[in-house]
């Protein structure tokens, strides 16, 4: 009699891979980070009775969407907000990566808007990432506000997030998502444009009925709801000697302020057909973007998310926690956009997924003040038994897209 292994993180026990892309039902959907604790049960990617995931279903509709009609909607929206008095009329959050470069450039130079770009800088800038950021502004031509974080606080929270949640990217996700609404409020700029539509990645299809995200996602009602690094705020302040002010950059905007404002949050990807590879070409052509000069570890690509050294580590942890590495994410996106066949995606996942990101590992560990062997212990503690088994002293995935049982 075989005992069924328990699962960690409330993940679905049965591992199912999408029949079209290479993503599995273990992938967490979008979830408010500030509520993220060890014991959370996060909604995960839905795979329907035909074995197709929500993201692929969404992609199905992409070729039949009336993009002209969507553009008309966009123009209507933009016409309502476009300013002629010299002020900014919209905010484009980003760091000069291909997606924010594309979005901001389109809005300014095609649609005649006056965007203010806002940046939550990476935790550990890569040099080519920083160059892309500068080129975005210098070659692309944009005004930019960057919020340079208190380094000690950022380091503390990042370290806690890793130790408690094995989530290196939490501070970045929190900071980036929360910066735009707060600056929008401060500067009275009512329109915020993010890039790709999140439904592309499999958040509930119902969210796509209109491209406006529920404002409350970005807002908070009460401090006691908030956890950072998996730790409740009071404990953070007491135990780690940080103040409310120190933590405030990671909080979402105040709910009351948002609710009574006229701020709207949109995904440009709802209005404009987003073809990731073409976005790369566009960014090269118009904002001086350059791909990474070597292959990103853990995947085959060179132009996705390359400005933060911690990013490589982040995708390694998704591989550990969900069995899904960076190649899986990249390949799935390309399969949905019909740049790759599933067969090719599977081959890429088999070859690159879970590759240990040794290039920047030591630097990340030094920055965090975590000993490499402690990190390994942390990693192993986050391997859910329903995903991992130990064979001959080595950890092996029980399920993978390239395995027979997929």
């Amino acid at each position, binding site marked *: 009699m075989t005992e069924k292994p328990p699962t960690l993180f409330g993940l679905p026990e049965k591992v199912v891979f999408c029949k079209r892309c290479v993503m599995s039902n273990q992938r967490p959907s979008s979830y408010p980070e500030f509520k993220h604790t060890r014991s959370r049960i996060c909604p995960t990617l839905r795979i329907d009775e035909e074995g197709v995931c929500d993201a692929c279903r969404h992609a199905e509709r992409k070729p039949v969407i009336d993009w002209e009609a969507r553009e008309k909607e966009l123009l209507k929206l933009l016409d309502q907000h476009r300013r002629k008095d010299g002020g900014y009329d919209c905010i484009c959050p980003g760091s000069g990566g291909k997606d924010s470069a594309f979005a901001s450039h389109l809005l300014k130079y095609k649609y005649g808007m006056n965007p203010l770009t806002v940046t939550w800088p990476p935790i550990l800038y890569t040099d080519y990432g920083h160059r892309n950021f500068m080129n975005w502004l210098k070659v692309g031509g944009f005004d930019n506000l960057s919020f340079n974080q208190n380094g000690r606080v950022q380091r503390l929270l990042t370290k806690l997030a890793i130790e408690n949640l094995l989530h290196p990217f939490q501070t970045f996700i929190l900071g980036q998502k929360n910066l735009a609404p707060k600056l929008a409020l401060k500067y009275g700029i009512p329109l915020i444009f993010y890039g790709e539509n999140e439904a592309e990645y499999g958040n509930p299809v119902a969210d796509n009925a209109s491209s406006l995200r529920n404002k409350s996602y970005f807002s908070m009602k009460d401090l006691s709801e908030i956890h950072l690094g998996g730790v409740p705020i009071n404990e953070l302040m007491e135990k780690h000697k940080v103040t409310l002010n120190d933590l405030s950059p990671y909080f979402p905007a105040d709910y009351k302020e948002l609710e009574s404002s006229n701020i709207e949050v949109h995904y440009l990807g709802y209005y404009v057909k987003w073809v990731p*590879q*073409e976005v*790369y*070409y566009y960014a090269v052509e118009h904002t001086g973007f350059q*791909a990474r*000069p*070597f292959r990103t570890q853990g995947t085959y690509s060179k132009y996705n998310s390359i400005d933060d050294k911690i990013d490589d580590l982040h995708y390694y942890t998704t591989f550990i926690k969900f069995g899904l590495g960076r190649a899986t994410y990249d390949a799935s996106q390309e399969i949905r956009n019909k740049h790759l066949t599933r067969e090719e995606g599977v081959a890429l996942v088999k070859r690159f997924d879970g590759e240990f990101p040794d290039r920047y590992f030591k630097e990340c560990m030094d920055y965090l003040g975590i000993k490499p062997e402690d990190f390994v212990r942390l990693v192993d503690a986050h391997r859910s038994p329903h995903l991992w088994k130990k064979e001959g002293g080595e950890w092996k995935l029980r399920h993978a897209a390239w395995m027979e049982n997929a």
Partner: protein
Amino acid sequence: MNLRIIPRLDIKGPNVVKGIQFEGLRVLGKPERFARHYYETGADELIYMDAVASLYGRNSLLEIVRRTADEIFIPLTVGGGLRSVEDIRKVLRAGADKVSLNTAAIQRPEIIREASRAFGSSTILVAIEAIRRSDGTYEAFTDFGRQATGINALDWAKRAVDLGAGELSVTSIDRDGTGEGFDLALTRAVSSAVSVPVIAAGGAGKIDHVLEVIQEGKADAVCVASLLHYRYVRECTYSPGEFTAEGNIESLRKGARFSRIEDASLPELKGWLMSRNIACRSTACGTVR
């Protein structure tokens, strides 16, 4: 001796693709059409690169090589994912005149010696794909621009020739597809260091660049891709059913332009070079007698 202009087709599956800095696989059309067009307008040779061969451990160009060799009577070089002497033999039998080796040669340099003994030095071209380091030296890369090797490109060039390569191509990964011009320092360094012909590749954005790389870069032959492709793509019309396999055809739908490239045709390019006293084989297509 006339200067050789060699169009390069990066091929994925059934399509011609063109990336920037060896990234991205934007589809620009069908290899058969591009090959025929370039043959008819004066290409001196053709290069076919299987753009994803190393990625998937396969070379799938045999069919297109056969079809090309049947109709097009100029030298054809084929590369991408050739791992063994047997792989090389298959491609030569299919009709290729030369093969281009990179990844396999860096991983096992002896293959250059073995292949040049088996097929003749002039059949073996070693492709050097390099990225400029901050100290001004160049590092060789494998796997179509994906894998750093830590090997100095110039040293490797000399070694490849010692092992029997009859020809070298030198590609700047930094410049490829950007239209910013060839890396003249890289080309000149390699061409001056070896006694075999060196083909420059990577970066042509206008016809001036080709002259530059011949005069200052000391290239013996010039390989171009974007410069010509972005002109020809506009002259092609495709029926909707032609692109059924996977591929990024989004930009084809919109008329594939790239503002950084001042595209040209082969006759324009050669005509201009000849006006600058570079001897070129004239592009008038001969009549059948």
